[in-house]
């Protein structure tokens, strides 16, 4: 039975994907996967050397043990963003003589075949065989490998479970990211150390191999949990689609902005009610914590403000670039209606500016907590903010007028290349290159602060010129309006 289902799945894959999809994208994805696997394998084999160089004088096994839980926590986050929910259009099978439990077992087994499960094996198993086995014995190595495999399975099914749950209620989403954020923050400020925990757990396991039973148990529980949840929610899609009562929402605070406010209200609903923009926004929120990695004390001590500025632009501007790369394409499904409606193009462009500026301002306020690391980061972020609202927004809107590919906003966001064309690649390049070009001459000729101030001032001036930009961008938009419309209609 399992084999028949598998063959159906195989057919559905080849017959649908290859039908209309871009072969180049497939090949590209193949290369990326291969590259990832090879890197994992290489790191796996050279881990010993790496540890020796990075942590000289420390016991290799202990460092390695401290690293394991770190990896698997990171793994959960990556999986959450990238792992597909295994789906099989089960309708045609439900009325056939197949037991439900068989269908579910199939879904679960099939889902295990993902590159995400292969990476940790390639990463950890070689090291275990070459370093743990000779030093601590075969039993210890076996225990290690079992726990690695068990952790993979645990992560796999726990992520599937959380993802399914968050389809039903978005609070699971929020909760998940809050927990992750809490972990990262406490770890950063040394309140709680994941690596210490990891080191102590796995060092103990080196001596008492039977402890491997704990991760094994976790894996089994995660599997059973997921299995039971699926059994009770086999018709999940139907329940979600039909059972939920949709309520009109009212953003009356936008009223005073007139038409522009109304346009923003519609756009907020677009983000909240459609999968792809919603996950883009969630990713953006996750990336706000990027500063914990980016803002290193060393940079402050050595006054490497260029690096810090780059980080600040990234953090305060990511909301714009993530959303802005598809600026008009988000609305591709009803662009005809927008353009035929009683809507002034200038007002439309203005609404984009206002949306960007308000989101960016909120981001600036939130990220001001990085001031705790060093107060100077506040000034750097302020300069980055002015660049983003003053210049980045203009670039985003300008380049959007060259983007002719529509997207389906109901699809997932990670690894989704629909709607990505040359305009998107150029966009990311330009947006982060320009501030460097402004910063460098000032910082080299005078000092880093001059570069930062210059960037801030240029951004501010550009912001004050916004009305002028609106006129210019409206004209640019009108030049290519028909091409955009045509492209969006094709999809």
């Amino acid at each position, binding site marked *: 039975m399992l084999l028949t289902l598998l063959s159906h799945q195989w057919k559905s894959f080849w017959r649908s994907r290859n039908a209309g999809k871009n072969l180049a994208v497939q090949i590209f994805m193949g290369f990326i996967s291969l590259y990832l696997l090879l890197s994992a394998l290489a790191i796996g084999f050279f881990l010993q050397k790496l540890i020796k160089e990075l942590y000289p004088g420390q016991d290799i096994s202990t460092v390695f043990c401290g690293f394991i839980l770190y990896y698997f926590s990171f793994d959960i986050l990556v999986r959450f963003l990238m792992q597909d929910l295994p789906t099989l259009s089960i309708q045609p099978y439900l009325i056939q003589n197949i037991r439900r439990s068989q269908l579910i077992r199939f879904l679960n087994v099939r889902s295990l075949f993902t590159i995400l499960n292969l990476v940790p094996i390639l990463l950890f198993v070689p090291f275990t065989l070459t370093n743990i086995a000779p030093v601590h014995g075969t039993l210890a190595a076996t225990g290690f490998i079992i726990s690695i495999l068990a952790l993979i399975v645990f992560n796999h099914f726990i992520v599937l479970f959380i993802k399914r749950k968050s389809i039903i209620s978005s609070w699971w989403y929020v909760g998940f990211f809050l927990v992750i954020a809490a972990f990262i923050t406490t770890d950063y400020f040394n309140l709680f150390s994941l690596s210490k925990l990891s080191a102590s757990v796995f060092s103990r396991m080196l001596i008492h191999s039977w402890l491997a039973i704990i991760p094994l148990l976790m894996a089994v529980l995660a599997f059973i949990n997921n299995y039971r949840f699926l059994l009770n929610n086999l018709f999940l899609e139907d329940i979600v*689609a039909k059972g939920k*009562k*949709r*309520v*009109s*929402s009212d953003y009356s605070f936008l009223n005073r902005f*007139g*038409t522009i406010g*109304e346009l923003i*209200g*519609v756009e907020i*609903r*677009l983000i909240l*009610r*459609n999968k792809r923009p919603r996950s883009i926004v969630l990713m953006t929120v996750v990336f706000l914590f990027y500063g914990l990695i980016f803002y290193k004390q060393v940079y402050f001590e050595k006054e490497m403000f260029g690096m810090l500025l780059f980080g600040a632009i990234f953090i305060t501007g990511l909301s714009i670039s993530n959303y802005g790369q598809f600026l008009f394409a988000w609305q591709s*499904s*009803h*662009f*005809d*209606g927008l*353009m*035929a*409606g*009683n*809507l*002034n*193009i200038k007002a439309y462009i203005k609404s984009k500016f206002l949306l960007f500026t308000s989101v960016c301002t909120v981001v600036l306020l939130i990220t001001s907590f990085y001031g705790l690391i060093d107060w100077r980061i506040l000034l750097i972020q302020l300069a980055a903010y002015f660049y983003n609202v003053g210049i980045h927004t203009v670039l985003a809107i300008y380049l959007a007028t060259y983007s002719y590919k529509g997207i389906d*906003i109901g699809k997932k966001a990670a690894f989704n290349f629909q709607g990505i064309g040359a305009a998107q690649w150029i966009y990311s390049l330009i947006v982060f290159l320009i501030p460097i070009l402004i910063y460098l001459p000032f910082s080299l000729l005078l000092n880093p602060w001059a570069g930062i101030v210059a960037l801030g001032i240029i951004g501010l001036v550009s912001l004050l010129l916004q009305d002028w930009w609106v006129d210019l961008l409206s004209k640019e938009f009108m030049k290519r309006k*028909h091409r955009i*419309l*045509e492209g969006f*209609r094709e999809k």
Partner: protein
Amino acid sequence: MITVHNIGKLYTGKLVVDVQQLEIKEGEIVGLVGNNGAGKTTFFRLLLDLIKADRGEILSKEKNVAASENWKQYTAAYLDEGFLVDYLTPEEYFYFIGKLNNRSKADVDEFLKSFESFFDGSVLKSGKYIRELSKGNQFKVGIAGCLLQKPEMLILDEPFANLDPTTQMRLLKMLREIHAQNRITIFISSHDLNHVTDISTRILLMEKGKIIRDLHTTDDTLKELEEYFKV
């Protein structure tokens, strides 16, 4: 109201719309008929400046639609679902359209009351986003969205195709009433010869992009059309 000068649109080397001269006067109800691929929808798109003409121009109140945005203020159109913001509830959509046309919420609510029988209880307060409505109900939302704008010029692409018989009758009645009250210009395409001859004051017959007949509707028009479409 509408003047067409030598408009032409090419797709892959073929002229899909090729109209030399056409004048539509204020207050006319014009029905556009023709088989699939005759160029009806493309013609409407040109009229709404949604595609670029390869030659010629269309004037709305003496202004080129491709050069000025003026026409948007008095023109309302519904061609397909691409005109609906499908992740909104019908109410939100109506308020949005209302806002674009400077109509207050209370105004919109008042207007929607008169649509209760047209919606037949399955559109307003349905607890659904527009994308979850049936095709027929989506069409009702689109048409109501048009009328909400109090247009002087109304363009509908095959309005009868997705509606149930009762609603078709209601729509005919409604269009006639609005026309009688405000003398608006209506431009509709349809495959339903009965309905379209019933309501139109003038019929344009399209074939391969050209308007091959321009008929003032009389009692014989239906017969003439049936003769043309006969297999």
